């Protein structure tokens, strides 16, 4: 072996290579280029590179693509996404075809019914000062607005009188318009706002309306009307001394059920139970729970405090 060999090889380096070498070398050359490209650069150079990347004048490319290239790539994505959107729309259309417009396919998540109260302003605290009208007037207005649909005249005009004490089942085709039973405001008696337009708020004896959530086809109570009961929740029982319930003894009459959905049961008005808190401890926060009682009603689920019951606070000041 000659010691001079490597050195003279160095002089003649580069240029043509043997077969194997040819295959080996493009790699390493490119690698060196990339290394240089990745090596440390000044911000100025970086900015220059960025500019060149954004618009390369020589090759007429923006971000590495020519106008045609961009056009085609965008065209591809346009076609691609249009097709996908089309397929999405189509699937949705097919899915909607399988649905009935009158009854949802499943009602397992919405039953048994929840409960809501009126007046409803923001939350579940009804607080006012008897002596200050401005504190209770919003509640009264809310009640009036809500009960407008229950005006005797409106009810008599649109709805029919039904036979009390049994479900008002209406047969016939699913799409036929269904009759709704009258629920006149006057049924609420002293809470109707007719005799006392302040619903007792001006006297510190507020009325609260309770309504059960509508569920299509739901027959509450299995033949026995669902009733309402109120008590003080986690507090002194004596804070709530008397409550009057209207109509009847605070029951939802069976004739208002079942509900057939908003397309066919156009004029349906939910039945109400009015609770007249005639004697509540003043100047105190009184937490009250009103629950439904009846067959099939669930009112003790921890997570859902509006299922078959409702919690609200009364705070009546002088």
């Amino acid at each position, binding site marked *: 072996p000659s010691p001079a060999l490597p050195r003279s090889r160095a002089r003649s380096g580069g240029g043509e290579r043997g077969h194997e070498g040819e295959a080996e070398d493009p*790699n390493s050359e490119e690698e060196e280029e990339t290394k240089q490209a990745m090596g440390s650069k000044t911000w100025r150079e970086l900015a220059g590179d960025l500019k060149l990347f954004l618009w390369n004048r020589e090759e007429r490319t923006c971000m590495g693509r020519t106008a045609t290239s961009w056009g085609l790539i965008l065209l591809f994505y346009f076609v691609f996404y249009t097709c996908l959107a089309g397929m999405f729309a189509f699937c949705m259309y097919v899915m909607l075809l399988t649905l009935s417009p009158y009854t949802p396919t499943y009602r397992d998540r919405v039953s048994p019914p929840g409960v809501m109260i009126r007046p409803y302003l923001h939350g*579940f605290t009804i607080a006012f000062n008897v002596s200050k009208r401005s504190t209770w007037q919003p509640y009264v207005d809310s009640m009036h607005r809500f009960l407008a649909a229950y005006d005797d005249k409106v009810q008599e005009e649109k709805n029919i009188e039904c036979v009390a004490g049994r479900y008002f089942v209406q047969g016939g085709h699913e799409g036929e318009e269904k009759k709704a039973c009258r629920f006149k405001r006057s049924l609420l008696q002293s809470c109707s706002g007719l005799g006392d337009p302040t619903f007792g708020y001006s006297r510190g004896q507020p009325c609260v309306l309770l309504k059960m959530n509508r569920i299509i086809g739901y027959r509450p109570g299995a033949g026995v009307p669902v009733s309402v009961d109120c008590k003080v929740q986690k507090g002194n029982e004596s804070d709530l001394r008397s409550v009057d319930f209207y109509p009847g003894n605070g029951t939802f009459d069976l004739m208002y059920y079942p509900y057939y959905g908003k397309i066919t049961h156009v004029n349906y008005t939910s039945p109400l139970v009015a609770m007249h808190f005639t004697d509540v401890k003043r100047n105190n926060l009184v937490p009250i729970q009103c629950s439904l009682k009846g067959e099939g009603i*669930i009112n003790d689920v921890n997570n859902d405090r509006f*299922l078959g019951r409702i919690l609200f606070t009364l705070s009546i000041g002088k």
Partner: protein
Amino acid sequence: MPKPYFLLQKKSDVYSVEINGTEDLEKTEKVDEEGMYKDLKGNKKKKKTEDLKKELDLVSDAKLTFHRGLSSARAAEILARDGPNSLTPPKATPEIVKFLKQMVGGFSILLWIGAAFSWISFGIQFAQGAESPFDNLYLGVVLALVVILTGIFAYYQEAKSTNIMASFSKMIPQQALVIRDAEKKELPADQLVVGDIVEIKGGDRIPADIRLIFTQGCKVDNSSLTGESEPQSRSCDFTHENPLETRNIAFYSTTCVEGTATGIVINTGDRTIIGRIASLASGVGNGKTPIAIEIEHFVYLVAGVAISIGVLFFIISVSMRYKILDSIIFLIGIIVANVPEGLLATVTVSLSLTAKRMAKKNCLVKNLEAVETLGSTSIICSDKTGTLTQNRMTVAHLWFDDQIYSADTSEDQTTQPFDQSSQTWTALSKIVTLCNRAEFRPGQENLPVMKRVVVGDASETALLKFAEVVLGDVMDIRARNKKVAEIPFNSTNKFQLSIHETDDRNDKRFLLVMKGAPERILERCSTIMINGKEEPLDSEKAEAFQTAYMELGGMGERVLGFCHLYLPENEFPDTYPFDTDSMNFPTSNLCFVGLLSMIDPPRSTVPDAVSKCRSAGIKVIMVTGDHPITAKAIAKSVGIISATSETVEDMAKRLNVPVERVDRRQATAAVVNGMELKDMSLQQLDEVLCNHSEIVFARTSPQQKLIIVEGCQRQGAVVAVTGDGVNDSPALKKADIGIAMGIAGSDAAKNAADMVLLDDNFASIVTGVEEGRLIFDNLKKTIAYTLTKNIAELCPFLIYIIASIPMPIGTITILFIDLGTDIIPSVALAYEKAESDIMNRRPRNKSKDRLVNEQLAVYSYLHIGIMQSVGAFVTYFTVYAEQGFLPTTLLGVRVNWESNAINDFEDSYGQEWTKYQRTYLQWTGYTAFFVSITIQQVADLIIRKTRRNSIFQQGLFRNKVIWVGIFSQIGIALILTYVLLRYWFVAVPFAILIWVYDEVRKLFIRRYPGSKLVGQEHVLLKQSLSLVILLLVESFFSILIQPLLLKRPVCAIITWARPMKG
């Protein structure tokens, strides 16, 4: 200038050694890389003599006080000055720091941000007294848990990886016998100081670097230091200028095999040779593995996407007048959706599965990431001895009757095929059998000859085994030809001689047999045996001998000559007293019989493995301490230098011109001598590495190995290095992947390496390469699979923010996918078979062939991911529509929907919902969304099985593990969503669409090879066209299938499973 000490010793005569002055031993500075480079050029020989003189002074001083030793006081003084005789462990990063590093690396930081935001929003919500602030608390806890668990997992993996100092400290001898205060004392070896007199006997480990002053038959095993396996004798004689070569120094951590010796300690602790190597090895930087770089790149990519989308939508949601708190919660969702939480663990598991598979094939991988490194290896620097060769001398050629015969050198030879009919062979075989002191260890009769253990040196062993194979029971032949006198081989005579009685009862003559260096043997001969007849040795015959000798020598083989003489009966009667000292018998005018040449032959599997490497684009460089001729011969026989290629010297010889006039560029092969290497500049080395595809480095020192490795790395190559000695450990560490030998390798080498070859076989490396490449391909698939669903997880948030629909999927649900259903399938992809012959590809280009590239990300995110999202949204809308909320009702409802106060929320049918009922429905939606992602991920899994081939080419059932993955995926999803069977089928058309779409893509890729999906416009256009047709077909299919799936029969099954409230 500090200088590392290395020596690879095989045969003392052929060594080019970095000769080191003893002053190095005195120096304590750590060896740095810079120093090593300088070392290339500057070799200080001048000072050496003085230093040796100094040392001799020290020794003569010691001889005076030899019986007394040091006084305890003096020893304590020196100990205080030099420190204990033990290796300083490298400054280790505290475990807690390593652990914390795992906690903040990769995606962890993103998830920590997510967790922190969760807790912040919990704090704010809690302070505001919101309804359910604890959701965010739990989310934060879950995110933190994910980070901590993956961190622990990663830490555990890292903790298993190499700790180089461990084995060095294990090598420290426990006790040493020291003379101090004129008394022999047993002392812990770490108490030794320079100047101590120590006594060593066979079996002991040498307690420090020792200058021997008294020896008796002492032999040391230097294999852990030099890689040399033969024990070397030690004496008090100064035999070589180089302290590493001289016989009167024994080194720390080597073993005394036999005999006894007394010596004076000249170096202790880190200043010993082994200490220097240890500090050098730990000083060599261990760069990131290629896969680690790839994963980092991938993490940056994904984190970049996550952060930019997160911030973008944070800004959008703030400007859409969402509350800051809500926007932050959105941000968390986006981050969680974007980060593939389970991926890094999956990668680790895949790698360890491959590691296990490789262990079965004798590649023990110590560092998991090294599994892939082997796959991207572009240069293998291989040892010769033991790795490419069998590591035992074997008879390769014979010359007698003026003819060269080849012998079988394979590992499992049982017969020899050459012509054995000649009378000359009979004579030659007799000499081979009788003039040999090697013996089989008893009790090995049942073992194959080649596997038996022999007592004797390498050449004699080779001859013994050769004779045993050809002739049968050698010991019996020897017994029948009783030995009457013998002169063993020595370096002055260069021959070995013995005199025997013959087993021929009629022939009372003694037979004198002799073997040795061929030219010396020939000198003693006057006749030569041809075809069984003695003929005078004329110049013609001598010429024939010379030719044969040159030819065999030129093949790099060790040649021995054999001759004999029947002593005349009248001069040497039965009772003749042979005296080997006075040589009262003739040793000249003998009859020359033949030559035998031996070589350490290549392993039979190696040529095939080398050619596989070649077709896989891997350059195999041989680095050996052997003589260039031997190295070149072996390189040629295993194909490292291919049959057709020539070195510059070969060309010069062929063209009959001086070496200087040959066009060097035409020589593909190069054999570089260690001496030449020493004089080369880095540029010159680079050019050698660059210009020649077939390179052999011969007569190199282990330190030069390090330089070669660095040279290769400068070319941008991923370098694998094999090694076995302690002195190889720096090169092993420096290499991208260090491969230590499992059988011959020292502990230090094994510790420095990333991989251990259990069978020391080069061919195993090739299987390792194959596995490594496969895992890289499969990791690509895994990542593509994992990334796809990120879009399907991300889109819900974006649409939720923009269209204000109820939340389609929850953060925890996303974690169920990422850490639940998707884990096993993505690991299953690691079992996928290769699509094409991966060993016919070039190694991947580090800077171009990334694990995750633009195409992969774009295709996963913008094609399949979007399809998945669309499919999942169809399911989402189906769930809500079937429960009463038609799609049109859902748009823009977010504020009321999420209001806790509104408990009579009206749906499209006039029914009224409480908040909790809506939330419950929303969870149903989550589940359905989850289920449809899962079902589409099954399709995704199937399409990811291949990247180019059709699934039908690859075979749907060949990888059974994929099916385990699919079933586990569906199983886990079923457990999580048992009530929701009916929504399993909504996304099925989209799953099928994904499959068909990808088959079309693969078809285009196969039909237009070389084009990338994105960027080759004509391909794109054709694909768009086929896409339209595809979607039309698909739509018709949907018409048929979807109503069926959504109709009653399915519902009837699930009514029993209607969830109960309360």
